């Protein structure tokens, strides 16, 4: 019971309010209680009080007649009766009658047959407890805190809380009774669980409401508490006595108490509270006899002794029968569990013998299902780790996959693990079935499909689809489902872990590549510094050489050998200077100027650059079948890279020229530009070093340079890369892969014609320093 729950706390409060609103104890009973608890009160007052209630008078007189054979002949008056019986007896009798009268509304017709709270049986229990308490107290007269009369009252009323609860919440209390019978538990526990409050508390409240003496109140409240744990009050032993009497009576199965728990045996309990077990036993022997006398005397029940015995025996039998049923239930449950364990063991034996991959585990689950649920068509739905799609595998009876499909999850359900498990199809599973039928084949009748969720620690690991109509009992099915689910779940985790480690390896590879690239960039940075220094240091002397050579050439007679030599000096120094510039630019390329350009403009520029370098080259064929979107890139860089690739292609002596083709890769949204030649091609070694600066395949006869290295540098500077595919004698295909950035940029940018700006002109002049 969760008392922290505000609704339940409120509920308890409501129940208590109702308990407190119970009709007060009849005036006469109140008055009698007061009078008899006061030693000094006169007998006359008791007599007057009883006389005021005619029906009570009649009952008391009847009590007298029954109690004393000798009194029968005498004319009976209340006065005589009080003298005859003693006013304690009168008080007890009155309480017995009046207290139970106050709860004596008759059951509604028809409700009678229900297993409802049996008041007569309960009353008999109460009376028996009262008698037991009285008898035990009587056996221990030397104990002054145990007054037999008080013990009777306390015992009689100890269970009044139950009456109160039953009166206030008849329907709920009926459930309490039922549940107590089913579980053979202590009724107080069930009361707390169902009502939120037990009869102890209810009794205490009632006692407070009725202004009953503290002794009674504490008895109602604490009679079931162990002696040790009772508060240190003067009537501590009386409280325990009521508990003991209750236990004695229950052991004898007299009446109905609702408590089926026997925490201690009577002797132990008696010893704990300082009583003599033998005398308690003596007292216990007299209970039934005494009970018969009292009920007769009170005219409350006409049950003869034999009947009381019979009832007791029947009641005991009843309990025994219930115990038997429970044992039988346990036995069949154990049998079922044994079967479940056998199935699970079989599954584990099978699964353990095969490898532990997810596929193997699922195959093992399916073959186990074939064995345990029945041979049939099975499918398994699971969600591969890290994926949004679900996988559906269909199996044949051998547990082999016959069909496997990766599918979109059904609408409204994303994570398979989130599906809650239940034997009945919950609402979110209902969405699964129609969707499922789209993917399943081989099931004869889709309407017979059933789902079995395989739970694991973090939800539903997988779902088995089957067509078995008769399933093993729940225990076995549950055990199997959990076992299968855990196996699939851990295999999935294992797969996930393996994928992660693969991803880690992939990341490592990328990291290594990045490091390589970083290293290359570092050496490029050093090269850049060097080239910048070289440009300054070398270009000055070169300027002198070149300038003097030019001046010489001007002075010398035109066409003379000396003049030609001077012109050569000029040309070569110029080439050297160009190379220094190229190296410098290679190491420290200018920042790309990103603008919207059309690929046609880029190609035009590339062809111009190429023909500037080698005017003998023919115009190119340019295949651009589709309308390509504008690019956002540095036109000069891209054009320079393309021109290098084209120059390289022509140097390979192509038989049928050089082809340039462009297309957009819709998947990655990138531009693919291929420069294809059918020339000499490259061997593996050349291909490997193709991007190295100053590398050349030919040991001599070909001008080594920065061509491909420069092209790569430019393409990298605008975020792309170059791939080379080549085979000796089959030509080379150089592919530029360039991401198409931000196609969704402001459309204005696209509208701007890609006119070369003044800056670009300047740059152009600097980049290309050929005369």
């Amino acid at each position: 019971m969760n008392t922290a729950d505000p609704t339940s706390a409120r509920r308890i409060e409501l129940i208590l309010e109702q308990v407190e609103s119970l009709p007060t104890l009849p005036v006469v009973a109140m008055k009698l209680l007061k009078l008899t608890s006061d030693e000094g009160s006169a007998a006359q007052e008791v007599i007057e009080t009883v006389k005021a209630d005619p029906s009570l008078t009649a009952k008391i007189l009847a009590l007298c007649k029954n109690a004393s054979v000798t009194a029968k002949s005498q004319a009976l008056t209340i006065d005589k009766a009080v003298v005859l019986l003693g006013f304690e007896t009168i008080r007890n009798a009155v309480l017995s009658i009046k207290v139970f009268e106050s709860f004596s509304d008759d059951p509604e017709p028809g409700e009678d047959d229900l297993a409802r709270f049996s008041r007569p049986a309960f009353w008999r229990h109460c009376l028996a407890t009262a008698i037991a308490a009285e008898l035990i107290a009587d056996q221990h007269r030397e104990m002054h805190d145990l007054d037999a009369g008080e013990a009777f009252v306390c015992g009689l009323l100890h269970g009044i809380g139950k009456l109160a609860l039953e009166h206030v919440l008849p329907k709920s209390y009926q459930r309490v009774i039922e549940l107590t019978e089913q579980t053979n538990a202590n009724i107080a526990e069930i009361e707390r669980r169902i009502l939120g409050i037990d009869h102890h508390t209810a009794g205490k409240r009632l006692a407070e409401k009725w202004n009953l003496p503290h002794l009674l109140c504490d008895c109602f409240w604490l009679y079931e508490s162990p002696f040790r744990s009772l508060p240190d009050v003067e009537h501590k032993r009386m409280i325990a006595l009521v508990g003991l009497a209750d236990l004695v009576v229950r052991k004898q199965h007299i009446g109905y108490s609702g408590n089926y728990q026997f925490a201690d045996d009577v002797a132990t309990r008696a010893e704990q509270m300082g009583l003599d077990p033998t005398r308690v036993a003596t007292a216990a022997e007299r209970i039934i006899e005494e009970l018969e006398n009292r009920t007769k005397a009170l005219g409350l029940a006409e049950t003869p002794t034999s009947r009381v015995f019979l009832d007791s025996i029947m009641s005991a039998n009843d309990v025994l029968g219930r115990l038997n049923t429970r044992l039988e239930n346990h036995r069949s449950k154990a049998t079922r569990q044994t079967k479940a364990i056998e199935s699970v063991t079989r599954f584990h034996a099978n699964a353990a013998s095969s490898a532990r991959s997810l596929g193997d585990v699922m195959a093992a689950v399916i073959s186990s299902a074939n064995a345990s649920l029945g041979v049939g068509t099975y499918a398994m739905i699971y969600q591969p780790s890290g994926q949004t799609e679900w996988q559906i595998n269909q199996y044949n009876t051998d547990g082999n996959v016959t069909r496997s499909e990766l599918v979109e999850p059904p609408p409204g359900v994303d994570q398979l693990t989130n599906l809650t498990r239940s034997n009945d199809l919950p609402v979110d599973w209902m969405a699964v079935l129609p969707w499922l039928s789209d993917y399943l084949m081989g099931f004869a009748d889709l309407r017979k499909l059933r789902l079995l969720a395989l739970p694991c620690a973090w939800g539903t690991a997988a779902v088995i689809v089957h067509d078995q109509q008769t399933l093993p009992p729940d225990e076995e099915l549950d055990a199997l489902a959990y076992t299968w689910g855990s196996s699939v779940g851990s295999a999935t985790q294992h797969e996930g872990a393996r994928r992660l480690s693969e991803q880690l390896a992939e990341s490592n590879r990328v990291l290594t590549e990045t490091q390589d690239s970083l290293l290359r960039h570092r050496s490029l940075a050093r090269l850049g510094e060097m080239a910048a220094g070289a440009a300054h240091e070398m270009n000055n002397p070169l300027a002198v050489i070149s300038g003097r050579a030019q001046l010489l050439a001007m002075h010398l007679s035109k066409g003379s050998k000396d003049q030609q030599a001077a012109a050569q000096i000029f040309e070569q120094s110029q080439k050297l200077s160009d190379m220094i510039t190229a190296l410098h630019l290679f190491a420290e390329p200018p920042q790309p100027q990103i603008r919207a350009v059309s690929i046609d403009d880029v190609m035009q520029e590339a062809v111009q650059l190429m023909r500037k370098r080698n005017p003998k080259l023919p115009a190119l064929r340019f295949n651009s079948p589709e309308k390509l979107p504008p690019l956002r890139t540095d036109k000069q860089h891209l054009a320079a890279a393309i021109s290098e690739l084209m120059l390289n292609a022509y140097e390979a002596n192509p038989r049928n020229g050089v082809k340039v083709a462009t297309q957009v890769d819709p998947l990655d949204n990138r531009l693919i530009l291929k420069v294809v030649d059918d020339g000499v091609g490259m061997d593996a070694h050349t291909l490997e070093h193709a991007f190295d600066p100053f590398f050349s395949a030919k040991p001599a006869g070909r001008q080594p340079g920065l061509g491909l290295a420069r092209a790569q540098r430019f393409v990298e500077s605008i975020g792309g890369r170059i791939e080379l595919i080549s085979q000796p004698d089959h030509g080379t295909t150089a592919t530029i892969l360039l991401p198409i950035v931000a196609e969704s940029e402001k459309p204005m940018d696209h509208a701007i014609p890609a006119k070369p700006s003044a800056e670009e002109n300047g740059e152009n002049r600097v980049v290309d320093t050929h005369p």
Partner: protein
Amino acid sequence: MTDSGSAASSELRNKQVFTTGEAAEICQVSQQTIIRCFDAGRLTGFRVPGSRFRRIPREELIRFMKDNSIPLDRLESSKKRILVVDDDEQIVELFVDVLERDGRFDVRTASTGYDAGILSQQFRPDLMILDYMLPDVNGNVVCNTARDNPVLANMKIIIVSGVVNQDEIDDLLQSGADDFVKKPFNIERLMSRINELLEI
């Protein structure tokens, strides 16, 4: 023009104060005309203290010549003045050789930014060929200083450098340089660019 005549006129051109005879030669009028104008106050000057010799300051003579629409050829050289600034001696020599070979240029040289500043103030070059990397300051500082000086407002500046860095070039052009030429240079192209800038 003989060599001696050239030398004499060159001497005249650089003078700051003129005698009446020199002024007459420069203006291609008689000495009497100059004296008459001087005495009438139309050509102001001063007399040498303790004598009656008239002397005419250069600025006053130029004003007088301009007022009377006398061509300034003989006072101001027709040659364009070019200042070459570079710390590399051989480069400087090369530029001087190239420019003097042309014959239309009056060339002075400096090897530091400081020298370049002083010389340009005196020499008032029409064009400066400026090496970007000088021992004391960088070319852009020289550029900025020259552009802040109203006397040098019309001076053209060509930056030369062995290092090509587009961003630096852009900065230089922003600082007021008129052009950039990379070392080593093509003489013909350099000369045509100079002619363009000087409009000759």
